[in-house]
């Protein structure tokens, strides 16, 4: 039994997504969340949920991706933020209540939160 109302919505979203797919790969923001056993046990899924909620509330479109364990289990949940042209920054011990400030300061104001950051990967050169 199809829920027609929502299927029509999906088709409409598909159309919109097809249009902006090209722009996204070049100018996008990626938020990468560790989701290995260590991350899950530390509450990474709740952090992911908080990130999705915050993005939705602020109407920011950013790519959210989950990855496996990177070996820094004691510092999970880990959240990496990568923006085109900028360094990829890794934040450690992130909890859902820290997410609003993470999005506000890093994504919107462009300020790295030094107290929470544990590493940085310099921006790759875009050809």
């Amino acid at each position: 039994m199809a829920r027609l109302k929502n299927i029509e919505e999906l088709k409409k979203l598909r159309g919109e997504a097809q249009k902006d797919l090209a722009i996204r790969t070049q100018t996008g923001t990626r938020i990468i969340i560790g989701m290995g056993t260590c991350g899950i046990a530390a509450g990474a899924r709740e952090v992911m949920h908080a990130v999705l909620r915050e993005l939705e509330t602020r109407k920011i479109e950013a790519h959210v991706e989950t990855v496996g364990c990177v070996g820094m289990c004691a510092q999970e949940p880990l959240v990496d933020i990568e923006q085109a042209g900028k360094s990829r920054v890794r934040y450690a011990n992130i909890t859902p209540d820290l997410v609003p400030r993470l999005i506000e300061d890093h994504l919107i104001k462009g300020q790295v939160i030094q107290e929470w950051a544990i590493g940085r990967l310099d921006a790759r050169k875009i050809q």
Partner: protein
Amino acid sequence: MRELSLHVLDVAENALEAGASRIQIRIDESAEADLLRVEIADNGRGMSKELVRNVLDPFYTTRKTRHVGLGLPLFRDAARRCDGDLVLRSEPGKGTVVNATFRLSHIDRAPLGDMPSALMALLLSEHPVDVAYHHRVGVHEFQLDTAEIRKELEGVPLNHPRIRDWIFKELREGEAGLYSSVSGSVSVSVEPSGTE
């Protein structure tokens, strides 16, 4: 793990590591039989008999940077604590099935918890995967197959922000419907557009 949904997520991620392109997650809750059954099946590379034995040993891991692999042993402990058990079936080249059972009313039985978020964490993985999800609570059923959604999307990825938010909403509404007082089945299926 605080919720059984986190164990489901953990096992499903093993499937991703094993190269699965399709994961079936089936959850059956029956108050009548006092049983909660979770089954996670994948089409990944599968395991030899020896590996199946090893994988339930907490001190066995395929990772090089650690000496423990706790996911499956802890899930089995959780099941056994609730008068249930965890059984693994696997064959190299054929994939793996993990089956965990719990006495539904057991006082130590953790809640199933937030399955929509668990499924989203899986679908947002760097390894693209299709998930066929089926959750039954008594007479209520909720099904969602991302393969069908993908067909409808014509190449737009599932993790595109707007698509991903749509899927999340579908999952939350579907799950909520299982626990409401309205009886019936809900299945998110995508019908072919246009006429034959």
